[in-house]
Structure formats: structure tokens, C-alpha cells
């Protein structure tokens, strides 16, 4: 063990990031982010149930510029986790393990995430002008 000069196997940061790896890591990060978002959702329910002033305060925070940026990131996180989750369900069923297929399905996850995120905010803009 004394020989600290011995070669180490290449570490994670050495490799070029394949799409599958990036999405896999994002799946975990978005999962944690969505759990935090779920706490805010419950806070809104509690505010509506008990205190209109508290609801107004939360509404103000979320409708601010920073609030909207966070909501947009949560929208992307939701759809990325959702569509990549569907991809996982296909893997669970035994489909889509070919290397070329995983790259293709990963690209479709990104396309669907982008499309649905834009659609949700398009609807918001069309219906409420937020």
C-alpha cells in the first residue's frame, strides 16, 4: 500500500459523458428537486385550507421573476423525470437495451421533455398571461 505512485484506474471525470449517463444522473437530481417541489405543493394546500394571507404570500413569491424561473426548471425536471421514468419502465419490461437504442430513446426523452415543458408554459401564457 506504500506505493502511492501506482497507476489508478481512470476516474469518472476522465470519460466523455455519454447521453445515457447524463440523463441517468439528471434523473436522480430531478427526483430530489421534485420531492422538494412537492413540499411547496403541500404548503399551498395548507395555505388555501387555513390562511388566505399566507396563500397570497406564496403566490407572490412564485409569481416573481425568480419564482417563475424555479417553476420553469421544475416543469423541465418533472417531464425529464417522467419521460425517463417511462424509458425505465420499458427497460424493466426488457426492451431497448441496445446501445444505439438507448441513445435514441435518450434523445426522445429530451425532445418530449422540451415539447411538453414549452406546451405547459404556452398554455399558461395563453390562458392566464403569466
Amino acid at each position, binding site marked *: 500500500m506504500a506505493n502511492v505512485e501506482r497507476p489508478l484506474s481512470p476516474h469518472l471525470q476522465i470519460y466523455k459523458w455519454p447521453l445515457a449517463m447524463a440523463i441517468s444522473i439528471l434523473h436522480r437530481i430531478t*427526483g430530489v428537486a421534485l420531492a422538494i417541489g412537492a413540499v411547496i*405543493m*403541500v404548503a*399551498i394546500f395548507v395555505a*388555501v*385550507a387555513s390562511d388566505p394571507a399566507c396563500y397570497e404570500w406564496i403566490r407572490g413569491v412564485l409569481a416573481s421573476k425568480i419564482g417563475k424561473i424555479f417553476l420553469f426548471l421544475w416543469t423541465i425536471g418533472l417531464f425529464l423525470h*417522467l419521460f425517463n421514468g417511462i424509458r425505465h*419502465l420499458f427497460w424493466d419490461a426488457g426492451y431497448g437495451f441496445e446501445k444505439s437504442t438507448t441513445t435514441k430513446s435518450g434523445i426522445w426523452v429530451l425532445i418530449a421533455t422540451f415539447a411538453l415543458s414549452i406546451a405547459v408554459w404556452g398554455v*399558461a401564457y395563453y390562458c*392566464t398571461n403569466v
Partner: protein
Amino acid sequence: MSLRTPLSEAKGLGSAKEGVAHWWFQRLTAIALIPLAVWLAFAVSMLGDASYETVRAWLETPHVAILLILLVVATFYHSQLGLQVIVEDYVHGWLKVVTLILINFLCIALAVIGVVALLKIFL
């Protein structure tokens, strides 16, 4: 040739002694959350930054209350299962046990708080 006893094979709990319960309920809640989450995203986008009265009226609609209660339960069940896997990967020793207990308590508490709040609005 299997070296497992007939009893262990019948129980089907495997070497981790937990069986497939964690894996199965993660998938079950995931499938439930696909339509629920898409519905919520578009429903909220139509509400925008609605006033207290508008949001309250929306939450008092029966189908909204039902779907949101299902969503809250599925969300925090799914969160607990997912966060547990992440903690088991990166946290070790007694800190892991403490974190897992906290996540369990928090997820159950938040699910109950959410459901009670929704019922209080609806009833």
C-alpha cells in the same frame, strides 16, 4: 440445481430478505403518477397565478380533490422509495439510518398533511 430451501423459494424474499416490494411499489407509484403529473402540470398552467378564491373553488371541485389526494399519496410514497435508494448509495453508517428515518417520517407526515388540507378545503 438450486441450493435454496423450498421454504425460501416459496417466500421469494431473496438474499436481501426484502423481496421485490420496494422495486414493485416504485414502479406502481410511477405508473400512477404518469397521468396524474401530466394532468396537474396542465391544470396548474391553466390556473396561472390565480387568486385565492379561484384556487379554492378549483380545489373544491370533487374530481380535482380526488385526483390531488391520489397524487399526494403516490408522490410521497414514490419520493420516499426514490430518496431511500439515493441515501443508501451515498450515506453510510449511523448517518444513513438517521437520514432514512427522517425521510420516512417526513414523507408520511407530508402526505397526511396534504390529504388533511385537501379534505378540509373540500368538505
